């Protein structure tokens, strides 16, 4: 468990299962469950596993009792994808592009999240008139990412123009517990849609999606909301952005003003097609983490296999987002890397070289202005 990552071999085996058992249908496992009247698998049911999604560090116990951080500090990436109407192919697409996505984030030599333990939640949403409004996976770091996609069944329909990502945004804001936040750093949340949302969260539907314990679990997770006056979608986004870098990847650009009003214009990125997803996500994360800059972004994308013309489009699309904001966090340069030893679970800082006492990383010396040679 401690070292597992998504490998191409493991993904290929799951893809083969989709091809054979599923006869090409990515969602075959979820469809089969529904045929058997079993409902959602707990792994992707928002109610499942006590509602809260945890992103935790992975350790390996050493002979002396200390804990070795096997894969770095976990960084959570959540993608909440529209599956209504023309977005109905998004489960298949998330599955197909997963090797590329994972490689760009965690696998390649220039992976934008190379120093972290990349953990991924995939979620899909429909409309409140649909059978299921939301599916939400666990935070996974290996082939389970792919397997849990096979449990998600896109609605493909959607009741009207407005759709209901609101409940997925609610889950990200109030029912997520990401270890990275303890360092003051933020995780990432991407909403992928071509439609507007309803801008409100309805109590009845909230309980329908998350169950009767939703308010209890929100409180247990450290948040306060009024049951009588639920937050609007805009207020939920404000809450989410305290802990996550939030972006709308808006397909087609028809509702840009709508989404800008909720997320802020610099957090709305218009993309022509969902196929751009892996590269757009890597670009946004790299620019936010400071591992990429705008001037070298096109060259980076091309070097990672993106078509030159698409790379140009992506650079222009992301050029207005806030840049390098993660780097402004005081702990940005101090977070422990893989191989670090900890005294016990829950410690934020590793044990010192001379003893077992957890020590916070020393502050780097400020760069001195070298008298008159400093410009």
């Amino acid at each position: 468990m401690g070292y597992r990552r998504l490998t191409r071999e493991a993904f290929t085996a799951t893809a083969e299962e989709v091809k054979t058992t599923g006869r090409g249908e990515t969602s075959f496992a979820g469809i089969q469950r529904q045929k058997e009247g079993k409902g959602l698998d707990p792994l992707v049911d928002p109610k499942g596993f006590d509602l809260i999604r945890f992103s935790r560090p992975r350790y390996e116990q050493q002979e002396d009792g200390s804990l070795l951080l096997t894969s770095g500090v976990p960084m959570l990436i959540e993608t909440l994808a529209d599956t209504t109407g023309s977005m109905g192919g998004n489960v298949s697409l998330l599955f197909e592009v997963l090797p590329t996505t994972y490689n760009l984030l965690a696998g390649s030599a220039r992976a934008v999240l190379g120093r972290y333990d990349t953990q991924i939640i995939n979620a899909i949403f429909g409309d409140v008139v649909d059978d299921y409004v939301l599916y939400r996976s666990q935070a996974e770091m290996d082939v389970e990412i792919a397997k849990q996609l096979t449990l998600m069944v896109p609605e493909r329909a959607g009741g009207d123009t407005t759709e209901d990502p609101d409940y997925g945004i609610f889950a990200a804001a109030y029912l997520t517990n990401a270890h990275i936040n303890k360092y003051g750093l933020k995780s990432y949340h991407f909403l992928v849609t071509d439609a507007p949302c309803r801008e409100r969260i309805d109590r009845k539907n909230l309980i329908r999606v998350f169950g009767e314990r939703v308010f209890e679990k929100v409180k247990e997770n450290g948040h306060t909301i009024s049951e009588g006056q639920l937050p609007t979608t805009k207020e939920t986004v404000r809450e989410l952005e305290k802990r996550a870098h939030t972006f709308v990847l808006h397909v087609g650009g028809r509702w840009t003003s709508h989404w800008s009003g909720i997320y802020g214009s610099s957090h709305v990125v218009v993309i022509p097609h969902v196929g751009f997803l892996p590269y757009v996500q890597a670009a946004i994360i790299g620019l936010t983490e400071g591992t990429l800059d705008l001037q070298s972004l096109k060259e980076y994308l091309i070097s990672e296999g993106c078509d030159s013309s698409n790379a140009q489009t992506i650079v222009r699309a992301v050029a207005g987002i806030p840049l390098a904001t993660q780097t402004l966090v005081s702990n940005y340069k101090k977070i422990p890397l893989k191989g670090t030893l900890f005294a016990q679970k829950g410690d934020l800082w590793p044990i010192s070289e001379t003893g077992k006492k957890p020590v916070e990383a020393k502050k780097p010396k400020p760069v001195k202005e070298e008298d008159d040679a400093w410009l």
Partner: protein
Amino acid sequence: MAKDKFALLGTKGVFAVETKEREGKIVPRKVGETKNFNLYFCRSENFPKRQFILKVSKTIAENPALDREAYILHELRIAALRIDAELVDSPMNYQIGFPEVIDSFISEEQGERRVLVLGFDIGKDFKNADGEDDLSLLLPISRIRTRNKERVDPKTSAWILGKALKFLVFFHYLGISVGNLSGGNILIDKEHYVTFFDWSDVGLDNDGVSSEVACSEISRLAREVITLLTGDPDAEELLDDEHLPDGRYEKFLFALADGKFESAKRAHKEFYELVENMWGRKFHPYTTYPL
């Protein structure tokens, strides 16, 4: 050019910051600063006769703004040159309206701060006797009043406003808003060609520049020009001038300043219709009066 302590190694060569003597010491010649950046003149052996402005972020926290500025200026230049390649007989010369990024790099010796080296295509009239660039001849329009203690004549103000509006049409067409439209950011040369200097507050909008943003940028530009005429944009007053035989020009300026125009294209078109009707379309030398 030997590398000295005021020379920075970029990707296009060594850029030597110009120096001056102060209290017996040689110090870099700072030409300006903002809260976030320092500005110096510099030259490079790789670019003979050219002078550049070296823009250094004050801390690494400002590096991203310079990264975005460099990217936008690069994109603007590509777009401007592409347009002129299509309009060989009547080029628009949009590239003179903003700096050219000669180099952009992170300087390790300056604490990993980002450095931009900026060149200018504006006019031809900022060269010294040896044919070398002399960027000190570029004048922020706010200084016409504050430093030179002068006011411009109406035709000069029209020349400046017309050129500036032309550039706003181009920028807004590309979904880019300038951000900084203060008089300190609008530079002119001796032929009163216009260039917008600082782009660290640039805005990009996927939906195109909104009518609100366009209106605001047009308004702020007009207010600066009214100030150049020693007018008061809030009181809607201008000094009497023999070149203003009737109230049409003032009325138009105040309409721009008052946010009556939501499109730079429309403002530019109607502005030139008025000016040509009043004065004809011909070169007017830069003309000022003492305050």
